[in-house]
């Protein structure tokens, strides 16, 4: 029963930071305003960068620092600015529209997190890594991001869900393997940036065609 046997402080700090990521993921799910969603995503990215920097510091693997820096620049500054521009230009209603309402969404996300915990528990038991709880949290964030993409109608919230998934993947990579090779990480960052740009353009087209960024209207397209 007792687990509080003075565990190593570094690994606890990593766990604390990754938990903050999960908390912001929940805040995003419970958020109704688009711009607040984007702000929360930026906050989540900052926590991600702090986690990565901590792992870099504790393991002495220098290239994770570069990844942390890129996370700040791309995910906490550039992408939120792009998304804010989209929101401003679209002049969208501030309310997010839902396929699934907030209270059921929260319950589903809770179930997803439990699923993630349950699935990763056997791996975490092996426990040779510094960051064994982070793996479960990373999977939980990926699932929540995926759920966001399914359960929201507006294109902007779907982008936020996609980016949140990416944050979860990055956390998982940092937690499970102390980061990927630098070249892969650079590629992923570039991919995410381009994806955000392309989805942004696509959102503008959507707005021009339908006067709305509600993606469910796409089913009404005819030749």
């Amino acid at each position, binding site marked *: 029963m*007792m687990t*509080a046997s003075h565990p190593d402080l570094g690994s*606890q700090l990593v766990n604390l930071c*990754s938990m903050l990521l999960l908390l912001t993921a929940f*805040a995003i799910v419970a958020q109704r305003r688009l711009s607040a969603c984007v702000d929360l995503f930026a906050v989540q990215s900052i926590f991600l960068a702090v986690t990565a920097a901590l792992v870099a510091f504790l393991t002495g693997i220098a290239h994770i620092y570069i990844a942390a820096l890129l996370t700040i620049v791309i995910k906490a500054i550039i992408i939120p600015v792009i998304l804010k521009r989209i929101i401003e230009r679209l002049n969208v209603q501030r309310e997010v529209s839902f396929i699934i309402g907030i*209270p059921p969404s929260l*319950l589903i996300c809770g179930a997803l997190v439990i699923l993630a915990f349950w699935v990763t528990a056997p791996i975490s038991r092996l426990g040779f890594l510094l960051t064994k709880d982070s793996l479960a949290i990373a999977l939980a964030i990926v699932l929540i991001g995926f759920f966001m993409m399914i359960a929201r109608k507006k294109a902007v919230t779907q982008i936020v869900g996609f980016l949140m998934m990416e944050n979860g993947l990055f956390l998982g990579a940092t937690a499970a393997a102390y980061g990927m090779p630098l070249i892969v990480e650079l590629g992923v960052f570039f991919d995410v940036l381009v994806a955000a740009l392309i989805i942004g353009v696509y959102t503008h087209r959507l707005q021009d065609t339908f006067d709305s960024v509600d993606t469910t209207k796409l089913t009404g397209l005819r030749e």
Partner: protein
Amino acid sequence: MGQVVDGLIFTAAQAIIVLLVSPFVVGLIRKIKARLQLRQGAGLLQPYSDLVKLLRKDAVVSSATSWLFTAAPYLIFVTTLAASLLVPVFLSRVPLHFAGDVITVVSLLTFGTFFLMLAGLDAGSAFGGMGSSREAIIFSLTEPAMILSIFAVGLTAGSTNVSTIVHQTAVTQGIITDPPPHLMALAALFIVTLAETGRVPVDNPATHLELTMIHEAMVLEYSGRHLALIEWASALKLLLFLTLLSNLFFPWGIATEPEPAWMLLALGAWAVKVSLLAALIAMFESMFAKLRLFRVTDLLGVAFILALLALVFFYVFRGA
């Protein structure tokens, strides 16, 4: 024999401290809020003057009310005070720890809230009934989150007794002991605190606007010493929650042995932690707008899910 006397002294000291400090916390939050809004604000001691003024005045009791209306303020005051004696303030094992665990604390608070709701209904005014019905919604949603979040911390300590939890956590360095479940429980309990003490995203303590008020609507019929007791009890409740937050999750500095010098130090540490939390609440009140009543369930849903996840996390990763 000496232990019994010591226990009595510590209990009396804790009662006097919480009674005296609680109006100050209310004043502190108001002051910080006023400064954040670039107002001068009332003095820090204003709640004391209010209480003294109200205690001196006669209570006006409507002839339409039953005995419940006059009994309720005393019941609410006494149950809240009893609950705050079970929560460690400066000594990690309160002398009364044998008297009850976290379920007792919550049920004492529930008892007070229940009578407050009855009293709101008793006078038969429209506002009182409205306030009571709203309070019932919110209370039924916060209570599970509150119990679950304290249980989540209790699991690490291996007990449901608040004193034992605080003692164990103090010995093993607080939130750093096991961050993931503790952090979730902390977030949940903070939301519960905002809801239970009628703070901004849920209720606005500074207004009597009929569309939004909850706590104020229930106590609208009260005056004089009855009102003073109810206000004092809600200040006690606020202090109780802040103490719970600070000592469950950050029990740094709390005295684990009854030594005078250590206890004085612990009292100082407690004052600092409670003031910081009060400042945080004041910031929240200035940053966020009040939620629409039917949106409050979203916020409380987050609290419940987080508390539940903290428990599940513990069982999946730490249990067995």
